């Protein structure tokens, strides 16, 4: 579904992503792991069209994706819940969700999708007219994921959805991701919490300073010594 080939992305003259390749098959959950500054967020931002490629290619559903403006990428079916949530803090929950559905015109279906988000995260439903900035970190994360779902993406990219969340809340988020997969959404998940991510993932890629070091199935990576040492707190 998504194929990234030899992608190089730079900020100014400094290459942050130095020629990475990976694929996400339809219906899969794929995770990108890596230490701080490895280039995970940069990769997602490039796929979303927020950053230009220095070289390499991105393909989505058989068509060339790189060079497509960001708003078109959303229309093609790729949504991102960015690192740090990036909610519109002064706007209400409802308005944030509406903006998530900005690329759509089917008003009735938008309404029912919104209700689905409220079913999934009842706290959002009961406080839908409050500004997003008033919610707790975990609640804001739910809203960020809900907002990304509102475009009805085929591919949903989540950048550190468990950041700053309690273990319980992390479990809720991970369960939501699994439910989304069951609904047919393909997922590209960036996580610091390797344990949680790899338990879900069909496939994982490990990034270090802008390069992919190795990749394997989620299950194999959970048992991999190198992964254990760096990401799972060695034991």
């Amino acid at each position, binding site marked *: 579904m998504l194929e990234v080939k030899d992608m190089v992305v730079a900020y100014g003259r400094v290459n942050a992503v130095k020629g990475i390749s990976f694929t996400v098959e339809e219906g899969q959950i794929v995770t990108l792991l890596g230490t701080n500054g490895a280039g995970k967020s940069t990769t997602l931002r490039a796929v*979303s*069209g*927020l950053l230009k490629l220095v070289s390499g290619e991105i393909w989505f559903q058989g068509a060339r994706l790189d060079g497509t*403006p*960001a*708003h078109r990428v*959303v*229309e093609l079916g790729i*949504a*991102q819940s*960015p690192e740090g949530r*990036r909610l*519109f*803090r*002064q*706007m209400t929950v409802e*308005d944030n969700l*509406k*903006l*998530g559905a*900005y*690329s759509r015109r089917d008003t009735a279906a938008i309404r029912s999708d919104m209700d689905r988000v409220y079913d999934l995260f009842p706290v959002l439903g009961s406080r839908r007219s409050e500004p997003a900035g008033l919610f707790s970190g975990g609640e804001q994360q739910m809203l960020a994921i809900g*907002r990304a779902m509102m*475009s009805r993406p085929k591919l949903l990219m989540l950048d550190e959805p468990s950041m700053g969340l309690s273990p319980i809340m992390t479990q809720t988020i991970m369960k939501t991701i699994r439910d989304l997969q069951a609904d047919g959404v393909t997922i590209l998940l960036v996580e610091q919490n390797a344990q949680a991510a790899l338990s879900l993932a069909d496939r994982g890629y490990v990034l270090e300073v802008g390069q992919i070091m190795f990749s394997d199935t989620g299950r194999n990576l959970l048992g991999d010594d190198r992964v254990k040492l760096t990401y799972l707190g060695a034991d």
Partner: protein
Amino acid sequence: MLDLFFQQLINGLSLGALYALIAVGYTVVYGIVQLINFAHGEIFMVGAFGAFATWMLLGQPTDWGVSASLLILLPLMLLGGIVVSVTVALLTERFAYRPLRNAPRLAPLITAIGVSVFLQEFVRLFYGRIPGFPDAKSAIPFPSVAGISGEIVRIGSVTIQMPALFTIVALAISTLFLWFFVNRSKTGRAMVATSQDPDTARLMGINVDKVIVAAFAVGAGLAAIAGVAHGLNYGNIDFRMGFLAGLKAFTAAVLGGIGNINGAVVGGLVLGVVEAMATTFIPGQFGSSAWKDVWAFALLILVLVFRPQGLLGAKVVDRA
């Protein structure tokens, strides 16, 4: 004394309404692209000239009755002014500012000053070349509109000039329209989102280029209305009229909190009222009209010292 106060309050509100109509344009554009569009005063000026041109194209009517003037002539002149202002604003956005979107901040700022000079000179040199049009190298008389020009209404001993009332009503209607646009329309919501976080707005599927165009268009439309109001109030228009009005409106936008639409409206009204009051109630030469600009900018400095973010201060296009 009290009558004089109310008289000056009305005068100040109408002057302030003019500033406010222009100030909105500075603020919406700044809120979205962080550009101080120094050419916005000229967008106001070309709006007035556009309205004048519409009157010329209608055959320079001078004898239309009140209802024909208010229902046909004035709306057409407003429309003509808006079309010209919006067109010029969008052309400058497309060809002067957009190519510099990722350039250092100073580049578009200097370009804006260049655009401002260009537009003034363009009107000065070419307006009179249009067959039948008056030479615009100095002020030209603005057409009078029956029912407004020269008319007054009295409330007790307070006299309100109709053109002043027109300006206040125009601001009220425009503010209402803005509120609906910002809070209820999809493009308006996209504009607020973009002003708060452009990258995330793009992740929502918002075409930021279109939002920027909308911001320039809205600001230009209101500036054109101000251009017509100026013509009706002062009876003439001039290729230089955008300079001082633009400077005052920019002051009003900063006073209210640049980037904030409500702030632009409040800032404009406060500035207008302060100017009107200063010329009346400050005794001696300091209250002469030569000093009113001094008081206006003194107010700006005072506000910026105690509330650097402006009266209504957030750095975003807030709900109007």
